[in-house]
């Protein structure tokens, strides 16, 4: 070792380097972040797989539920027949799809924290709030486009099953088009909710537990409460409020109006996202 130590001292006698590489002409900060997130989204298997699964369960759900009601129509009670909502029934795959879409949203952030990739991401783009917002924009748009298409497909397939005595819906019916579009909007809000909770918890198990705890566990727990207590609280829960957007027949007299419910769900998402945007600037990564 000491032989190397006695090498002649190196002094900074070189001129400063002229680095030649410059950002592409016309590159904007926002556009660059979006391109980067777009590449990241499609370059791992999990995201396309979760998106494909979500689309699949929405479409297959339309078929299976449609076929189930057609074959079992005779066994339904008159009350059940009166409250039958052909649009909602064909879209109910959305309930299963929210698991895939929600997990995708949570993992989009917690995955980066778990591997430590978030440090590389934020070193390349130190505008943290922008990274978060653009990530949400990219994933939100992709989910919206795919799930809206899946909603229309499920609606078409479901209605084709409703023949004979089973009532079916047509896109021109009151509230029907809104409900079909609502399937895609609801799942978009779910993915954004998942991302916000993922950014807040920074842990996959905690993020998933909080998302599904709020969306799925809370309604069941509230329904256990006696009589009207549960009925009155239930409509204001995020998942229940949001799902009014893709129903035509409201499930209970206490239910919120479609856009009111969706607005309330969007408000919950906005509060979580706002907290995430504030915290991401303050916390060390």
């Amino acid at each position, binding site marked *: 070792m000491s032989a190397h130590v006695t090498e002649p001292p190196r002094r900074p006698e070189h001129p400063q380097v002229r680095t030649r590489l410059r950002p592409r002409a016309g590159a904007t900060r926002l556009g660059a972040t979006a391109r980067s997130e777009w590449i990241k989204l499609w*370059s791992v298997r999990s995201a396309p797989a979760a998106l494909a699964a979500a689309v699949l369960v929405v479409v297959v759900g339309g078929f299976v539920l449609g076929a189930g009601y057609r074959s079992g129509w005779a066994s339904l009670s008159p009350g059940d027949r009166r409250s039958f909502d052909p649009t909602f029934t064909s879209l109910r795959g959305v309930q299963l799809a929210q698991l895939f879409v929600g997990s995708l949203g949570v993992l989009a952030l917690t995955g980066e924290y778990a591997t430590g990739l978030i440090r590389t991401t934020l070193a390349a783009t130190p505008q943290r709030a922008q990274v978060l917002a653009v990530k949400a924009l990219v994933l939100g748009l992709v989910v919206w486009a795919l799930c809206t298409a899946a909603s229309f497909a499920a609606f078409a397939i479901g209605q084709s099953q409703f023949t004979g005595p089973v009532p079916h819906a047509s896109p021109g019916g009151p509230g029907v088009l809104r409900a079909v579009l609502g399937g895609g909007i609801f799942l978009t809000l779910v993915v954004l909710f998942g991302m916000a909770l993922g950014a807040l918890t920074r842990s996959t198990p905690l993020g998933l537990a909080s998302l599904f705890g709020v969306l799925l566990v809370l309604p069941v727990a509230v329904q256990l409460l006696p009589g009207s207590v549960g009925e009155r609280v239930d409509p204001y829960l995020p998942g229940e409020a949001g799902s009014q957007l893709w129903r035509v027949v409201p499930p209970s007299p206490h239910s919120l109006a479609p856009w009111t419910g969706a607005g309330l769900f969007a408000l919950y998402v906005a509060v979580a996202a706002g907290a995430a945007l504030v915290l991401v600037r303050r916390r060390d990564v």
Partner: protein
Amino acid sequence: MDTHVIEARGLSKRYGATTAVDRLDFRVEPGRVTGFLGPNGAGKSTTMRMILGLDLPTSGSVLVNGRDYQGIVWPLHEIGALLDARAVHPGRTAYRHLHSLAAANGIPRPRVDAVLEQVGLTSVAHRRVGGFSLGMSQRLGIAGALLGDPGILLFDEPVNGLDPDGILWIRTLMRSLAAEGRTVLVSSHLMSEMALTADHLLVIGEGRLLADTSLDELIARGAGDRVEVRAVERARLAAELREVGAEVTLEPDGTLQVTGVGSAAIGELAAARGHVLHQLRDVTSSLEEAYFRLTEGSVVYRAPVPA
């Protein structure tokens, strides 16, 4: 505006009651490899994360090219960093990983192929990085640091877990980057590695700066060069050397350890006074000795900073 310079002023980071980084002042200059040396847990990685705007200082500041990191629009063009080689998504290919980074900073796509070529990963560019060895991951991390052709490069413990070939490769790379006039800051807890790579050293212990000096000066001042002498009349020689201002210790093995007077002067004095010498040897202290002296005493020592 300063170019290719990192400057910390009163940089501090506290986690609750523990102080990880304590009022650091330093300036990392271009054209040389600056070693960031300290034992594990001394605060090196925390400092590096603060340079990159990942951890926020409790007080003080650290500026890259005169600006706060979070205010830089295209940071990869100014500073590239290798922090943790394993901090990648295991399911993404090396190419896509770099492509996403390049896109985030408006770096044209051909540059991705160029850096993959430079670090020798072209043949595995389209393999998932989950299957990479630590050495390959380290090369991928370095490719990411070089992507924007930055004037400043940061390497956090780059030789950890590398084989001898890889270590030699990184060492050569860092030296050539500095020779091109870039600023290179490399952290390590391995003094031997620093001795081979660095021109300048920042020594840190328990979050505090212990030395900011050139490698040679640190060795010279940290321990001091000495001369080892064996003489027949050692007591008389010792007394005569002390008369001319040398510090002399008599070791149990019979040698005299002399500091403050060079070997030539000792030889001349011995000849003039009629001594018979059996040995006259310069002993150069190592970086390790210098380092232990620094950290044991926790003496804050600083060479005059050139203006």
